[in-house]
């Protein structure tokens, strides 16, 4: 057997060589896989979709999304702090995850409930808008401004842009973006496209399109809320049961000793994974239909391009 002694390369050359080889391999793979930048832009947009979901929850709670994100980071830090204080290694993994997911899960129901209340109030304000135009003979711009001045507690944040002066379309776009709700989004779209029509046509649009279809949408949302409430109730019950069982077991010294050992920690990880899997399954069963989010700015631009 021939044996060959290879001189050890300098670490700098080795690292540079590996980097060059990896870069070349990536380039060739990109060429073979026909990677195009448009596709990468779509991926980036999808990544932002996660942030959009966070913004939805924050809007549902009536909070600015920056505050929501700060609170989430605080809870993740709390999870790490608990691990640091207790000295249990497993908590370094479980703590931040529980802080991130648990906080969101605990408030998601409240956010959905609050959004539903806001949407109900919004349908009421659409009737108010219609009455202002039909009975008080106000123009759309004036009626919208009046609505913005007296929005009621549920819609204070959402309708406040309407009370500003300036471009009505820009204010309607801002209203839709603040609400982050399918019903308000649709209504904003309808107002953008039909605001330059006659007053009678607008009243007819609100009467025959916005209110009936909005009510149907609200009914769909309410039904989805029932599914979500079921999922949340079951998950809370399951979590409580597991926590109580673990607390009871840890009061017994032999069980406590076992769960402090590496084998016990492994069992806890498996239990946590099983639990997460079951909660995920529950989420899949109770999943609600997604709605189409309109880019109202782009819609306003399209409307402007087509002209009145």
């Amino acid at each position: 057997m021939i044996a060959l002694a290879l001189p050890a390369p300098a670490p700098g050359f080795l690292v540079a060589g590996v980097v060059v080889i990896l870069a070349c391999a990536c380039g060739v793979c990109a060429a073979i896989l026909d990677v195009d930048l448009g596709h990468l832009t779509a991926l980036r947009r999808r990544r932002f979709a996660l942030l959009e979901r966070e913004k939805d929850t924050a809007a549902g709670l009536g909070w600015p999304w920056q505050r929501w994100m700060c609170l989430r980071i605080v809870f993740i830090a709390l999870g790490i702090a608990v691990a640091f204080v207790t000295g249990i290694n497993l908590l370094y993994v479980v703590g931040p995850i529980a802080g991130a997911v648990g906080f969101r899960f605990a408030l998601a129901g409240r956010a959905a409930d609050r959004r539903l209340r806001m949407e109900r109030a919004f349908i009421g304000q659409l009737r108010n808008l219609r009455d202002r135009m039909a009975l008080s003979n106000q123009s759309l711009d004036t009626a919208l401004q009046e609505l913005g001045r007296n929005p009621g507690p549920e819609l204070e944040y959402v309708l406040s842009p309407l009370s500003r002066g300036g471009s009505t379309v820009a204010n309607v776009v801002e209203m839709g973006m603040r609400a982050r709700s399918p019903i308000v989004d649709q209504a904003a779209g309808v107002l953008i496209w039909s605001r330059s029509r006659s007053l009678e046509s607008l009243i007819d649009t609100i009467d025959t399109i916005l209110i009936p279809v909005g009510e149907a949408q609200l009914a769909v949302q309410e039904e989805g809320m029932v599914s979500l409430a079921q999922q949340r109730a079951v998950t809370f019950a399951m979590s409580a049961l597991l926590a109580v069982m673990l607390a009871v077991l840890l009061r017994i010294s032999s069980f406590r000793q076992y769960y402090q050992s590496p084998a016990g920690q492994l069992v806890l990880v498996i239990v946590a994974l099983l639990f997460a899997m079951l909660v995920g399954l529950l989420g899949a069963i109770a999943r609600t239909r997604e709605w189409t989010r309109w880019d109202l700015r782009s819609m306003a631009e399209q409307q402007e391009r087509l002209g009145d």
Partner: protein
Amino acid sequence: MIEVGAVLPYALAAVAVVALWAAILSHLDVFTPADVHAWHRLAALRGYAPARGRLERAAARVPMLRRIQDELDLPRLIGVAGRNETAAGFLLRSLFLSLLSCGLCLTALVVALVQTGGWPLPPAVALLLAGLVFLLQVSWLRSSARAHRDQAGTALGDMLMLVAILTDGRGLQLEDAVRILSRSADHRALQTIVDNRGWERLVEGPHRSTIHLYRLIAEAYGIPLFATVADAAANANLGFSERQIYTRLAGSVYQQRLAEARFHTARAKMLVTLPIAGMLIPLIVLIAAPVFASITGGLGSG
């Protein structure tokens, strides 16, 4: 110290793989000049069928590859997913990724063999991995097509209220209204079908009217709402205005969604019992693991 005799066959195999790789590169037209690419692009914009590469032409002639494409329904899945690639291209790319993963796995195994003197895992694992990667690619395409179809259908249903306004108040044609509105959705699922003649991915041949086109799209893409919109458009201005027709259609779409949501909730009430029952498993593991450990420990020490 490295034993050359042990490494030589693998080095030769690596050289063969690199040679194969270079051949694939040249067949895939990676080295095609930019102006030829530009002409291809112009031809695609004008609606001409793109010229197929040599490898694709060869793949089209291989009966086995053709059969795989047909069995997996690849052309339709790729069209529904809105991807700009051919079925043969997808198949070859998936095969390449499978071979790549197989090669990487084999390399890792060989490194371990040289280091330790024995296979850490049977080499057949690399083949299994290659098969898994191929299946994952196809499964990903399927789920992407399904998601795309659902998003397009939902967006079409959600825009009907606006279509009623655009066709009646603005005097736009149905096709134009749908196309303009599809550009304002936050995803491109519907736009890839109705804008820039995207339907040509799956709908072949000329169409007589928008109504005919929408029926063809409904059939090819599996989105029944297109057929419903076509039926509604066929009845527009025959006693009812476009505004009334599309508004009623929007209402019926939401009524249908409400019925589906009610059915979904009722079904969820039943199905939710499965995870609840499954919750017993972590509970049993939590209690049984220490007991089992103490029993086996006791038996071991005894």
